[in-house]
């Protein structure tokens, strides 16, 4: 599918900021399931620099703005050709050993309930393939946390979300990482875009899901919020231990400054007809 993305983040600061630095993990990289046709990240008035690719294969750009500023707009535009590979991440250049993602973070630390959820999901599946066990964990998380926006916060931990039984894609992802790690399966947080179909089935155009490491296949995506594996409606941006580590935009503000953020994301399919032509 050919997907176009238009993603605008508009930051407003209540006090003028003297100097502003952000790191952007906002550029998708090529892999077997996606090919980037065009992509541009634009921040007016900012100096771009210190660009590098991290060990997990993600492109990181750094911007700095010399103030005083009260507003910063980060605009992303691009087009990507996607292919449904059933969530399998292939031909992606990265060097982080999968075992590194067994550690999680304080957001994904398993409490007794998460450990129990993990154990129940895998009960009787000892002889099953690693892929089936990963699916079982994703199903368990989908069943344990109902999609319900507005109840959790960015800082909500996996344990808190499970206790609440409700959350958004971030909470599903943290919980899935947690139950996977509890079963000694490396797992990580992935951010990206999702093309919402007209039937309203899929949630959140700016999206997050988990990748679990399956020996033989490599990293495989699981979207517990939508009870599926990423397909050609998904564009993958980058990964990390948790939402904060994988965040598409990271910035810090001097003490006392309050920011408000407006985000608009549009992910459109460029023509269904193109599929039919092939």
């Amino acid at each position, binding site marked *: 599918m050919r997907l176009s993305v238009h993603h605008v983040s508009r930051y407003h600061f209540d006090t003028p900021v003297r100097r502003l630095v952000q790191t952007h993990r906002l550029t998708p990289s090529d892999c077997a399931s996606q090919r980037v046709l065009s992509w541009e990240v634009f921040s007016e008035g900012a100096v771009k*620099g*210190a660009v590098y690719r991290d*060990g997990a294969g993600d492109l990181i750009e750094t911007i*700095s703005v010399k103030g005083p500023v009260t507003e910063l707009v980060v605009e992303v535009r691009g087009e990507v050709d996607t292919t449904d590979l059933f969530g399998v991440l292939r031909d992606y250049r990265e*060097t982080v050993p999968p075992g590194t993602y067994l550690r999680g973070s304080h957001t994904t630390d398993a409490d007794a309930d998460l450990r129990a959820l993990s154990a129940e999901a895998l009960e009787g599946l000892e002889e099953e393939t690693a892929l089936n066990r990963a699916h079982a964990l994703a199903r368990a998380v989908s069943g344990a946390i109902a999609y319900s926006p507005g109840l959790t916060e960015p800082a909500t931990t996996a344990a808190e979300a499970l206790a609440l039984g409700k959350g958004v894609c971030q909470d599903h992802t943290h919980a899935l990482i947690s139950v996977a790690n509890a079963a000694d399966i490396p797992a990580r947080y992935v951010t990206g875009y999702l093309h919402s179909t007209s039937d309203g089935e899929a949630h959140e155009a700016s999206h997050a899901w988990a990748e679990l490491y399956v020996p033989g296949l490599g990293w495989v995506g699981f979207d517990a919020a939508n009870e599926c594996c990423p397909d050609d409606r998904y564009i993958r941006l980058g990964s990390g*231990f948790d939402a*904060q580590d994988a965040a598409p935009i*990271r910035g*810090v503000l001097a003490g006392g400054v309050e920011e408000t953020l407006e985000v608009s994301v549009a992910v459109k399919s460029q023509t269904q007809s193109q599929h039919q032509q092939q």
Partner: protein
Amino acid sequence: MTNAEPGFFDEMRSGSQVREAYQSLERWHSSMPDDLRTLKQSEAENLFRRVGITFAVYGEGGDPERLIPFDMFPRVFTSPEWRKLERGIRQRAAALNAFLADVYDRGEIIKAGRIPEHLVTRNDAFEKAAIGFRPPRGVYSHIVGIDLVRTGRDQFYVLEDNCRTPSGVSYMLQNREIMMRMFPQLFLENRIAPVDGYARLLKKTLASVAPDKCEGEPKVVILTPGQFNSAYYEHSFLADLMGVELVEGQDLFVEGDFVWMKTTKGPQKVDVIYRRLDDAFIDPLCFRPDSMLGVPGLMSVYRSGGVNICSCPGAGVADDKAVYTFVPEMIRFYLGEAPILENVPTWQCAKPDDCKYVLEHLSELVVKEVHGSGGYGMLVGPKADKSTIELFRQKIVEDPANYIAQPTLALSTCPTFVEEGIAPRHVDLRPYCLVGESIELVPGGLTRVALKEGSLVVNSSQGGGVKDTWVLAE
């Protein structure tokens, strides 16, 4: 003079004989009148107070205003003794850096099955942010502090390695400075190798690892957490000696491809940052977002080759107590050499067999927390009472992976001034090895001494002091 403690190697005496290295010191102290000694001791204290060197050694915490006792009786190594130590220290520093370069790249030592993967990748000190990147000259740990103890004439053991930002070197320099000021005659009578080249070598080492993008003379700075840090004195002392700026995070900023220092003449580009700040705090955009001590975007500039950070974030994975066990293996694997310095045999409580042995022999062993430091959270079995031993038994049973155990080492003793004259007290040694374009080491290090009679704990937080450390020139 109290006799040597039986069962321990005394560095000055062999039976009734005084070893050659200590003969002039024997004459020196025995001809010193008591009142002169008292006078000199208080003079030394005043000097230390005046220079403001009152911080806790090795970041052990405690009262930062407290003076660490200085013992005037020097500790002496002969030239052949030092040559062996020096070769061993250089070898170890090289192997530790080779290990870091390997685990942050291809991980050959793991693939070869010489070290278990989980000890590396599941280690909290293993930084994902350091993977897939080669720092200038492939050096990760630029200042390696290696803690050594001596148990016999030719027997030295490495207690632990410090690859992050080992502290205490200002004591090594000040101890010498003060001894020379108080007893200039001693330095005329003995040929003692100088240590005051340390600052020059440190600066040379840091400049030698400037990134490729640096043109001309590299700009080196020391990044400190600030004056409330217990080692702030050392940060400013080293900055002074090297003639470089001492900065805090707020003095630096990232713009474009570089890190800049705010100055009255406008921004100045910085090439090498000797940071005395833990990994977690150096860049809130990469590590702890609540850190106010770091520089936002610093890791991006580092990774894209605009600045060097010494030591490299993630260098700590090489000095972890569980990884320590494998350092001799690293030496064989990367250098193809036999280890010159020995490791202390270590039981890993994470291994059931080891754990069983440890629990059965608690009263003979030293038990340490894997991530602990400063002599806290440590059990010295032979010196502990029953309830302390039981407390540790419970702790180990609850979380075995958090503990290692080692035999109680018979730390050597060195004469030390006490009320009644001199008496043997246990000592250790931390030399500071510099790794850049070349590996450099000044002849000496910091000797810590357990001032309490019979005590084997040299930590300043638990009644330890410091001594000047001499290496006799040939």
